[in-house]
């Protein structure tokens, strides 16, 4: 494993930590005061800092350090996580994400913004209100916080007062650290250090930590061995020793804590400043403290690497140690640990207890693995080919085995079943929750809210709904666009909202759910809704519609999806560049999805996107229309029926209706809509597929015959040819021929009179 691979793992871990950080901060923002949430947030920043340090990513380390210091104040209840404080922290999380991205991909960050946030974070850590943007330059950010802290924080400058008018006052024990100029004796600290077994198994070493501690100043130590069992009852890899250390140092409490920072989660640690005059506390005086000799040079020869790791290139070992300790690359450690274990395996038999312990660790670490996406994609492609091949094989067997009962046929059915299962399992590998995308939207909302001066709350639901990774990756862009639109255009300014009897804070709601084999994502806002008059006027001005056009509300709403349409009076940085919603619609369509809008004046708008769960396969009904083979997605079909002549009714000049269980449903000839034939076919000679479109209505699609039902592998027309109206994609059938997959909604829309733009050549696609 080379340095770049370790670094790549670090960045992957960073992404997870950043997601953890953001969701933790959002929970705090929602009023969660669970100390574990604060800890999780702290840990995330701490881990990023630790890993970044190993790779000398100085900007990232500096920022993370300041951020962490402020979070530590929250963790130790010195700083109340008010909305104001959390606002700064959420922004800091964004900057931390930017810095991580820059460290990985290059580029530059907004230095002014990060400097400003460093100032704000430092002010919060000191218990002051965040300074304004013009505040003087900060002191060196990278330097560890010097102890003792500055004079007690001015009460008047503390954070926002509570209901009773009291002001939370940041309180620091550092303030009582003693006047160092007046006292010649260095401040003394009492350190209680109780390692957990994990400390050792993760490659840390108590002796090295104590050695580093001893370098800070004059130290005496007491080793508590009370819990050490006799040899036959001990687990050689468990921690039994704990230490009480008394140290006099001028480097401050932070320096003492820094020694343990990479092991913090794997030990119990107490650092107490004791009065320099008294030396150690009375309790520790009772313990036999052993002075630690200053000359520890004999121990310095070893590299600063974990003892448990086999000798490797020094730089890698050092990086691994830091990454390890920061818990940011536990799998790297596991690998290194396993390698060293393997190397040592022949040296002797392990005790049963230890073996069990190792097995438990192995199982805990083996629950997830990281796999390169390319490998999964290759597998998916291969399975796709397997499905096609299996279909071809089935077809040729069927053609040569007319009675269909031969053993080959039976075997093929089993093969089909197996292929299906393999395919499902492979698809499940790619399925990911939409949570990361939703979390990214939280940032978008914050930024737009800041720029527009609106107050916005983002509510998300169904973040754990899973969908194919490709869909998730491609979802972020259109969703960001829509969120921007929702905040910028949808929500009103606070004063306008108050005037309309709403709360000043607008709500944008993002939900995801599974519905009949698709994922449905809804974005709603409680803003003013679409201003239909304005939209209509704009459409007339842009020659999109005739001035006297008679449009329904829904049709007017849908005008916003037209290219070049923008209702923003002035072009802003956020939206309103006129490339908005048509681009969104195209992106969603390219994903095989659809988008709809419904809006109520004064109450807001709802955008509904329906997307396929996977872009790889589809269950379809293979049908014949005017000599062409088409595939109709099974999810759209409600039922199939053979129309009876008595059930067909003419309606107007060209419309026909079919009577199904005492209700009428429009009959749509697919061959006519797609221009496969010049006149409508006789419905009685064909088959009707009753479909439900995303818009809700039912239609009976007329096809000539049904060939069968089968799972088909989707081959994108957009990627291989170009978008064809009325056609969602293509596939390869068992006989090797290409068949087109019908876009049911587009056909239904066309049957309502909306043109399909058939000028694009269908024949070329077929």
């Amino acid at each position: 494993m080379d340095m770049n691979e370790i670094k790549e793992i670090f960045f992957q871990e960073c992404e997870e930590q950043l997601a953890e950080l953001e969701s933790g901060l959002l929970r705090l923002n929602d009023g969660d005061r669970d100390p574990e949430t604060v800890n999780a947030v702290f840990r995330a920043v701490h881990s990023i800092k630790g890993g970044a340090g190993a790779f000398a990513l100085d900007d990232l380390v500096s920022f993370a350090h300041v951020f962490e210091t402020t979070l530590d104040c929250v963790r130790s209840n010195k700083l109340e996580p008010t909305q104001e404080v959390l606002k700064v922290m959420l922004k800091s999380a964004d900057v931390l994400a930017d810095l991580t991205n820059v460290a990985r991909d290059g580029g530059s960050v907004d230095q002014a913004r990060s400097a400003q946030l460093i100032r704000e974070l430092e002010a919060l850590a000191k218990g002051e209100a965040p300074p304004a943007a013009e505040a003087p330059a900060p002191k060196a950010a990278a330097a560890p916080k010097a102890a003792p802290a500055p004079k007690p924080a001015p009460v008047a400058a503390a954070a926002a007062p509570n209901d009773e008018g009291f002001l939370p006052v940041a309180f620091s024990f550092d303030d009582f650290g003693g006047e160092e100029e007046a006292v010649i004796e260095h401040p003394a600290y009492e350190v209680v250090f109780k390692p957990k077994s994990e400390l050792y198994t993760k490659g840390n070493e108590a002796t090295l930590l104590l050695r580093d501690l001893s370098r800070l100043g004059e130290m005496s130590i007491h080793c508590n061995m009370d819990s050490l069992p006799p040899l036959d009852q001990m687990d050689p890899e468990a921690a039994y020793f704990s230490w009480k250390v008394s140290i006099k140092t001028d480097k401050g409490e932070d320096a003492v804590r820094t020694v343990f920072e990479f092991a913090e989660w794997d030990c119990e640690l107490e650092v107490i400043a004791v009065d320099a005059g008294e030396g150690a506390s009375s309790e520790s005086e009772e313990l036999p403290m052993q002075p630690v000799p200053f000359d520890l040079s004999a121990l310095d020869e070893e590299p600063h690497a974990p003892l448990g790791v086999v000798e490797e290139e020094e730089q890698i070992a050092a990086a691994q140690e830091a990454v390890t300790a920061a818990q940011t690359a536990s799998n790297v450690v596991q690998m290194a640990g396993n390698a060293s274990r393997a190397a040592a395996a022949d040296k002797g038999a392990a005790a049963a207890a230890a073996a069990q312990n190792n097995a438990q660790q192995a199982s805990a670490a083996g629950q997830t693995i990281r796999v390169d996406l390319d490998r999964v994609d290759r597998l998916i492609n291969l399975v796709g080919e397997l499905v096609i091949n299996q279909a071809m094989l089935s077809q040729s067997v069927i053609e040569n085995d007319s009675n269909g009962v031969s053993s080959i046929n039976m075997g093929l059915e089993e093969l089909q079943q197996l292929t299906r299962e393999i395919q499902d399992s492979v698809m499940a590998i790619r399925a990911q929750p939409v949570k990361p995308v939703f979390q990214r939207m939280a940032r978008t909302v914050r930024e737009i809210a800041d720029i527009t001066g609106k107050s916005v709350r983002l509510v998300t639901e169904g973040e754990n709904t899973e969908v194919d990774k490709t869909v998730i990756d491609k979802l972020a862009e259109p969703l960001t666009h829509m969120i921007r639109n929702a905040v910028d255009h949808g929500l009103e300014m606070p004063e306008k909202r108050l005037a309309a009897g709403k709360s000043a804070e607008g709500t944008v709601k993002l939900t995801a759910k599974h519905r009949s084999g698709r994922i449905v994502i809804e974005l709603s806002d409680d803003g003013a809704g679409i201003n239909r008059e304005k939209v209509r006027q704009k459409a007339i001005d842009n020659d999109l519609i005739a001035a006297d056009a008679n449009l329904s509300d829904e049709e007017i709403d849908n005008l916003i999806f037209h290219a070049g349409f923008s209702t923003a009076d002035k072009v802003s940085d956020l939206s309103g560049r006129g490339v908005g919603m048509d681009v969104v619609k195209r992106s969603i369509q390219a994903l095989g999805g659809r988008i709809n809008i419904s809006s109520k004046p004064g109450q807001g708008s709802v955008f509904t996107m329906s997307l396929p769960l996977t872009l790889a396969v589809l269950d379809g009904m293979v049908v014949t229309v005017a000599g062409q083979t088409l595939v109709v997605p099974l999810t759209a079909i409600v039922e199939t029926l053979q129309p009876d002549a008595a059930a067909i009714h003419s309606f107007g000049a060209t419309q026909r209706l079919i009577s199904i269980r005492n209700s009428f449903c429009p009959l749509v000839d697919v061959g006519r809509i797609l221009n496969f034939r010049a006149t409508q076919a006789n419905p009685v000679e064909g088959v009707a597929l009753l479909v439900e479109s995303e818009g809700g209505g039912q239609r009976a699609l007329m096809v000539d015959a049904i060939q069968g039902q089968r799972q088909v592998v989707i081959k994108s027309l957009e990627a291989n040819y170009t978008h064809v109206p009325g056609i969602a994609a293509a596939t390869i059938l068992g006989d090797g021929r290409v068949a087109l997959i019908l876009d049911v909604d587009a056909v239904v829309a066309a049957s309502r009179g909306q043109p399909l733009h058939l000028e694009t050549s269908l024949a070329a696609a077929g």
Partner: protein
Amino acid sequence: MATRKAAQKSLSLAPVLDLNEANTLHGKLMALRGNNLVIDASAVERVGALCVQVLLAGAKSWEEDKHSFAFSKVSDAFTKTTQLIGVNIDHLMAKEI
């Protein structure tokens, strides 16, 4: 402390007594139970807390068994590490007669 009838065994410690060596060392000591033991720690270059734990647990068990457990020679690194972590092994040093 020592009994007369038990055999005298010796154990030379490996230069690196780290996480991996803790199990091995534990196994070796378990195999030597019931004997008087002299340990040669003169080759030790690095020793971690886990191995010190194993050695001291050994000393405890040997004491319960009423057998002798002593270090004949120790390296500078071994002595310094035990001093650093506050473990006193003076009483385990073989006394010259």
